[in-house]
C-alpha cells in the first residue's frame, strides 16, 4: 500500500526549519516575529504528529506484516539497480514516528516557554524543526542509505544545538566533542553499510531486498557487518567506549537535552539494531556482544550518575544507563521489548529533563542539586510530575518503566544470560538510588542553602507552556505500561505482538516471573530507602558531598575516563597534528611548491639576461640561429640527394 503522507510528515519539519531559518536571517527581529516562530515551530511538529496518527491508524487496519510505502523519487538508478528516496511506515517505524512526533511536539511547546527570552528564539526553533525532520527521515527511511543521511543530519542538529549558547567556549568544545565522537561511530557505520553493499547481489538496496539477500553472505562477513553497524550505534547511543560526549552535550538548552539527548536521537542506535533484526538474528554472537556492551554501559553510567551533582549530568548518565538496557534487549533478540522500553523511556526521560529544566529556570540557571533543596512546596506541579517520572524510571509497579524494564530483565533471565540479568538488577538498584537521591535533594530535603540566604528565595514563575506538557508526559509515563501488559499480569503484550518484530522467544513460568519482578521491586525500594536515609533524614547537614575516599573521588570524576581519553587519544593526535603543522605542511608540502617557484623564477631571470637591448648581440644570435637551422637543413635534406 502506498500513500504520500509519510513523505509529507518528513518534509513538513524541514519546510518549517527552512522558513524559520530564512526569516531569522533576513527579517529584523521584533515581537511579532516571535509569534510567527511559535506558530511555525509548534505547528509543523503538531501537524506531523496528526498526520502520523492518521497514518498509524490506517496501518493498524492492515495485516501486521504490511507497510505503507511512500516513494518520493528515484535517486540513484544504475541499470536495473535502484536506490529510491522513499519512506516506509511499518510497525517498527510507526512506533518511532509516534514517539518522535508526539514527544517532540510536547518538547517544542515546552521550549516556547523555556527559550522565550533568548535572543536566538527563531534560530532555536529552526534548528529544532530541522532536527525533527532529520529524525523522521532516519526512522522512516526505507533503505540504509537514506537512514544514514538522517543519521548524519541528526548528528548535525545535535552539534548545532549543543553549541547553541556559542558565546561560551566550553559549549563549543562540547559540541565539537559530540560531533567528533559521532564521526568515529559513523565511520564504523558507513564501513558496515559499504561492506553490506559490496556483498549484495540482488538489485535494490532497500531493507526488504537486503534482508531477502542475507542468505547469500557468509556468517563471518555478516558478523563483521553487524559489528561495524553497531560501532555507529555506540557513537549515537552513547555506549562504551564512545559515550563521553553525552554528559558534555548537556551544555545545550534543556529542551534539546530532553528531545535529542534523551528521548529520540540517542535511541537511534537501538532503532537501527531493531531495524536490522533479520541481520542480527543470524549472528547471535554479535548480539551477545551488543548486550554485553549495553550491560557494561548501563552499570558504568549508573555508578557515575550516583556521584554526580549536576542535575542534567545525572540525567545524562541515567539516559546512557537506560540506553544500555535497551541494547541488552535488542542484543539478546527481544527487539520489541527494547523498542517498548525506548518508547516508555522517551516519555519519562523527556519528563525528567523538562522538570529539571523547569527547576533550572525557576532557580535562575542553577544546576547543582545541592544548591537546590526544599523546592517541593514551591513547585508543586513540577514535583508531582517529576515524582511520576522518577517512579517510572525506578520501575515501581503500574508505571511504564516497571513493565518495560522488567520485561527486559526477565527475558535476560529466561534466556539464560544470568550475568547480564544480575548486572541489570544492580543497575536497577543504582537507578532507584540516584533518581531518588536527585528527587529528595531537589524537592524534599530541607533547603539549607536558601535558609542561609545564599540564594534569593524568589523563584521565577514558570510559563504555562512549560508546565502542562509535563502532565501529558506524566500521564504517558503512568499508562504506557499497560499497552504491553505481560501475560503474567493478565495482559496480552499487545504492543510486542503488534510490533511484529523477529523476536526470540523465551518464556518463564508465571510464578518465576512474579518472583523476579518482586525481587526487582524490592531492590528498587532498597535503593529508595538508602537515598531516603542519606538525604531526607541525614545524620549531618546536607551539603555537597566532599569525597575523601579515593574510589568515591574517582567515581565522582567519572573514573577520569575523559582524562584518559585525553592522554591516550587527543594529545597524541594533537601532537601529530602539531608535528605536521610544523614539519610536513610548511617544509615538505609548501616547501616543494616554493622550491618550484624559486626554480621558475631563477630560470626566467637567467633567460631575461639574453634580452639585453644590444642590437649587435641580437644580430649575432640571429646569425647563429639561422646558421644552425641552415646547417641542419643541409645535413638532413641536402644529404639525401
Amino acid at each position, binding site marked *: 500500500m502506498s500513500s504520500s503522507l509519510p513523505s509529507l510528515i518528513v518534509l513538513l519539519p524541514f519546510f518549517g526549519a527552512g522558513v524559520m531559518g530564512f526569516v531569522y536571517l533576513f527579517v529584523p527581529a521584533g515581537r511579532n516575529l516571535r509569534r510567527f516562530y511559535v506558530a511555525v515551530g509548534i505547528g509543523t511538529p503538531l501537524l506531523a504528529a496528526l498526520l502520523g496518527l492518521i497514518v498509524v491508524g490506517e496501518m493498524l487496519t492492515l495485516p501486521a506484516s504490511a507497510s505503507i510505502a511512500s516513494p518520493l523519487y528515484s535517486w540513484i538508478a544504475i541499470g536495473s539497480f535502484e536506490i529510491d528516496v522513499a519512506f516506509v511506515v511499518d510497525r517498527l517505524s510507526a512506533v518511532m514516528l509516534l514517539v518522535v512526533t508526539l514527544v517532540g511536539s510536547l518538547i517544542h511547546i515546552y521550549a516556547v516557554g523555556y527559550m522565550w527570552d533568548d535572543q536566538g528564539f527563531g534560530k532555536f526553533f529552526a534548528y529544532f524543526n530541522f532536527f525533527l525532520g532529520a529524525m523522521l527521515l532516519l526512522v522512516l527511511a526505507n533503505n540504509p542509505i537514506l537512514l544514514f543521511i538522517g543519521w548524519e543530519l541528526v548528528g548535525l542538529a545535535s552539534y548545532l544545538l549543543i553549541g547553541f549558547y556559542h558565546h561560551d567556549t566550553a559549549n563549543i568544545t562540547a559540541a565539537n566533542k559530540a560531533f567528533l565522537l559521532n564521526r568515529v561511530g559513523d565511520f564504523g557505520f558507513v564501513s558496515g553499510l559499504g561492506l553490506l553493499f559490496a556483498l549484495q547481489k540482488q538489485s535494490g538496496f532497500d531493507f526488504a531486498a537486503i534482508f531477502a539477500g542475507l542468505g547469500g553472505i557468509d556468517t563471518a562477513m555478516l558478523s563483521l557487518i553487524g559489528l561495524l553497524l553497531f560501532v555507529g550505534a555506540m557513537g549515537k547511543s552513547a555506549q562504551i567506549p564512545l559515550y563521553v560526549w553525552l554528559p558534555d552535550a548537556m551544555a545545550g538548552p534543556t529542551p534539546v537535552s530532553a528531545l535529542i539527548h534523551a528521548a529520540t536521537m540517542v535511541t537511534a542506535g537501538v532503532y537501527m539494531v531493531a531495524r536490522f533484526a533479520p541481520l542480527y538474528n543470524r549472528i547471535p554472537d554479535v548480539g551477545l556482544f551488543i548486550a554485553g556492551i549495553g550491560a557494561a554501559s548501563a552499570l558504568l553510567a549508573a555508578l557515575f550518575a550516583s556521584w554526580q551533582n549536576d542535575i542534567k549530568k545525572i540525567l545524562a548518565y541515567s539516559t546512557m544507563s537506560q540506553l544500555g538496557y535497551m541494547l541488552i534487549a535488542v542484543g539478546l533478540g527481544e527487539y520489541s521489548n527494547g523498542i517498548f522500553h525506548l518508547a516508555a523511556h522517551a516519555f519519562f526521560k523527556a519528563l525528567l529533563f523538562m522538570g529539571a529544566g523547569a527547576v533550572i529556570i525557576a532557580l535562575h540557571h542553577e544546576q547543582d542539586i545541592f544548591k537546590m533543596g526544599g523546592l517541593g512546596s514551591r513547585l508543586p506541579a513540577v514535583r508531582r510530575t517529576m515524582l511520576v517520572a522518577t517512579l517510572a524510571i525506578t520501575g515501581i509497579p503500574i508505571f511504564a518503566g516497571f513493565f518495560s524494564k522488567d520485561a527486559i530483565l526477565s527475558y535476560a533471565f529466561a534466556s539464560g544470560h544470568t550475568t547480564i540479568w544480575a548486572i541489570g538488577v544492580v543497575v536497577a538498584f543504582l537507578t532507584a538510588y540516584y533518581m531518588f537521591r536527585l528527587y529528595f535533594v531537589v524537592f524534599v530535603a530541607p533547603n539549607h542553602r536558601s535558609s542561609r540566604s545564599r540564594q534569593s528565595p524568589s523563584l521565577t514563575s514558570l510559563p504555562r507552556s512549560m508546565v502542562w506538557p509535563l502532565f501529558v508526559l506524566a500521564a504517558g509515563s503512568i499508562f504506557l505500561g499497560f499497552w504491553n501488559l505481560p501475560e503474567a499480569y493478565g495482559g496480552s503484550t499487545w504492543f510486542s505482538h503488534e510490533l511484529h518484530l523477529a523476536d526470540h522467544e523465551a518464556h518463564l513460568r508465571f510464578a518465576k516471573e512474579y518472583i523476579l519482578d518482586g525481587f526487582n521491586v524490592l531492590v528498587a525500594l532498597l535503593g529508595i530507602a538508602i537515598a531516603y536515609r542519606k538525604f531526607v533524614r541525614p545524620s549531618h547537614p546536607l551539603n555537597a558531598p566532599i569525597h575523601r575516599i579515593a574510589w568515591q573521588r574517582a567515581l565522582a570524576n567519572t573514573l577520569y575516563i575523559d582524562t584518559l581519553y585525553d592522554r591516550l587519544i587527543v594529545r597524541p593526535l594533537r601532537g601529530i597534528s602539531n608535528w605536521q603543522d610544523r614539519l610536513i605542511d610548511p617544509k615538505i608540502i609548501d616547501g616543494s611548491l616554493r622550491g618550484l617557484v624559486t626554480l621558475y623564477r631563477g630560470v626566467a631571470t637567467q633567460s631575461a639576461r639574453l634580452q639585453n637591448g644590444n642590437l*649587435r648581440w641580437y644580430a649575432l644570435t640571429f646569425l647563429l640561429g639561422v646558421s644552425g637551422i641552415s646547417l641542419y637543413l643541409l645535413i638532413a635534406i641536402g644529404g639525401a640527394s
Partner: protein
Amino acid sequence: MTVNPDAYFAVATLLFSLGILGVISRRNLLVMYLSIELMLNAVNLILATFSRLHPDEGGTMIALFMIGVIAAEAALFLAVIVQIYRKKHTLDSDAFTELAQGKKL
C-alpha cells in the same frame, strides 16, 4: 664572355660575410645600415646568378623588384636614423638599450 659561376658565388659570399661582420662588429648605425645593404645585394647577386644558370627569368625579376623595394626601404631607414639621432645625438647602437630587460622606458 663567360665567367665561372663559382666566381659569382664567391663574390656573393664575400659580400654577405662582410655585411654580417659589419652588422655585428660596427656600432655606427649608418655603417650597420650599409652592411645590411651589402647583405641584400649579395642575395640579389645570387638570385640573378641562379636565374642565368637555370634558364628562368623569375629570379632576375625578383632581384629587380628587390632593388626597387630596397630603395624604398632605404628612404625609411634613413628617416628612422635621423629620428634616432635627434633623440640622443649619437649614432652608437650600444647607446640604445631601452628595451633591455629591467630597463625603464
